[in-house]
């Protein structure tokens, strides 16, 4: 059980529900049936109710027995966010450098982050994977992958 995390989640969702509910008020009203804002408001009301139950239950649990142990290993979050950042930068940079030229570098970095240190193996796998997937998707599956577009 993670009462602290559940309490934060519950409060966040309550705030999100209220904000979404108020925002839905700006949608036009319908003369017949449900308007654009009606169904989201119903859903957000249910979400508010459920998340308030979660918040109250977590509060009671926190008072009974405060959460002692962290759910993450030392350095785990840092690794996860670093890896996510690598993927995010890769996706954004694809617009400029293209799939074929950028993917080998990203594959190399990812294998490094996962602890591989055999440089020749990493280079061969990176280049082979990128080339193979590029030919397969671009030429045979007719999926136009991002191209080099820097200049």
């Amino acid at each position, binding site marked *: 059980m*993670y009462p602290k*995390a*559940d309490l934060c*989640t519950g409060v966040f*969702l309550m705030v999100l529900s209220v904000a*979404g509910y108020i*925002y*839905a008020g700006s*949608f*036009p009203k*319908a003369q*017949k*049936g*449900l*308007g*654009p804002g009606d*169904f*989201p408001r119903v*859903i*957000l009301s*249910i*979400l508010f109710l*459920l998340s308030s*139950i*979660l918040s109250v239950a977590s509060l009671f649990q926190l008072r009974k027995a405060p959460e002692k142990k962290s*759910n*993450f*290993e030392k*350095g*785990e979050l840092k*690794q*996860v966010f670093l*890896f*996510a950042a690598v*993927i*995010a930068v*890769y*996706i*954004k940079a*694809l*617009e400029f450098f293209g799939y074929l030229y950028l*993917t080998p570098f990203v*594959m190399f970095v*990812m*294998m490094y*982050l*996962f*602890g*591989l240190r055999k440089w020749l193996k990493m280079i061969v*796998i990176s280049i082979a*994977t*990128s080339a193979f*997937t590029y030919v397969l*998707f671009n030429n045979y*599956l*007719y*999926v*136009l*992958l*991002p191209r080099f577009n820097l200049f």
Partner: protein
Amino acid sequence: MELLQGLARGLLHTLEPGTMFVMMVGLVGGIILGAIPGMTGSMGIILLLPLLYHLQLGPALVTLAAMFCGAMYGGSISAILIRTPGHPSAAATVLDGYPMAQKGEAGKALGIAVIASVAGGLFSGICLIFLSPQLAKVALQFRAPEFFTLAVFGLTIIAGATSKNILKGLIVGVLGIFLSRIGVDEIWGTSRYTFGTYFLMSGLSLLPVLVGLFAFSQIFFDLAKSMKGGVVPKQNIGKILPSKEDVKRITGPIIAGSIIGTIIGIIPGTGGAIACFLAYDLIRRFHKNKDEWGTGVPEGIAAPESANNGTTGGAMVPLLSLGIPGDSVTAVMLGALMLIGVRPGPMLFVENIESVYTLFSAFILMQFIILLLGLGGIKIWPRILNIPQNILTPLIVIACFLGSYTLANSLNDALTALIFGILGYFMRKYDYPAPPMILGIILGPMTEANLNRALIVSEGSWLFLFDSPISTAFMIFSIVSLFTPIAMKLRNKVKAKTN
């Protein structure tokens, strides 16, 4: 008698070298595409278009059906091996397929998946052949109230699909419904929660969310595991056929899953994604060891796999007899057939009956070929897991990127997958289940659109819920489905306190 003679002629046509060749192209291509996350049967059918132009109607129908059935089975391969369903219809297979593979029994998991898939396909094929006219009449009964009550029934599964913590499951499911409402409203055309961004106008696509919640989140988990020095157990590929005890365990779920899948497939606009979760939850509820589900039990693979392949024949019932697609893949199939000058519907059975008989015979034959291909591939597929994690995981990242990008050639879809991957990682860390969110995203649009239509037609009266026997039945099922897990939990708590 005439039907049997027609089927015999159809079988002879199917066994012609040309027809067998294109059927194999469809089957093998479908299995491969289905196994690649993000590549669906719909895409496979579009890729087949240049081939279809050169074929006569019979072989063209056979090729399309082969791609459909192959892709539906193929999704289970990646669901079991890398926790990434190849398409939404295999999402429920992850729940027990991946844990079984993690225990070193990937071969057994894949064996159960192929047997269940073939059984589901055979059952729905027999229904397609012998019951098309009757089942098509059922499909015609579905209007907005019936679709709405079906969606409500589907949503009540959310409570049951999360045996550990019902409250967290409901929260995630309701959040999923809300997320599905982002974008342009289907009835009024109003932009909702798009904040002026062009990308959000079309809403959140299911595939990138699926890839993110299942695949990317698993990648982040594997990163944490590799830090701790954890290893994936070596795969036992020795046994690929289930044992006698496993056969006994999976027979009931396969029969039930096949029936559920066929029925869901017949209903236009539904599909394998709804069928797999419905089958998983309904069968689990009546199972004596329901608490073991989710840890890698054979029934947990057999139920959704027989259901999703059960939708293949079911979805072809309204397509062929009424010209109405049963799901998204058959919708693309309808478009493909119209492009080659064929209009499915009642006249198809009058003007092209021999081609229809060829399709019927081929549909049954291809299930056995899937069995052979599937069992043959089992010796090969699990070896993927023996690739070192520091090589396999980056390969999976690239596959996930390609899968989410391919949908609309959009880098924003890939970013969506990453964002949901981070969300999925934290959800797993804090015991928030992912399947309810997927269910909410699938069923949200169906719920609102049909509720709105029903209310407009009934001029605001809610009595439409009980206007027809079908909608009344679904409402009763929904009430029972929603409150049964809560009542069972309360009963168990009271029992525990008494003891």
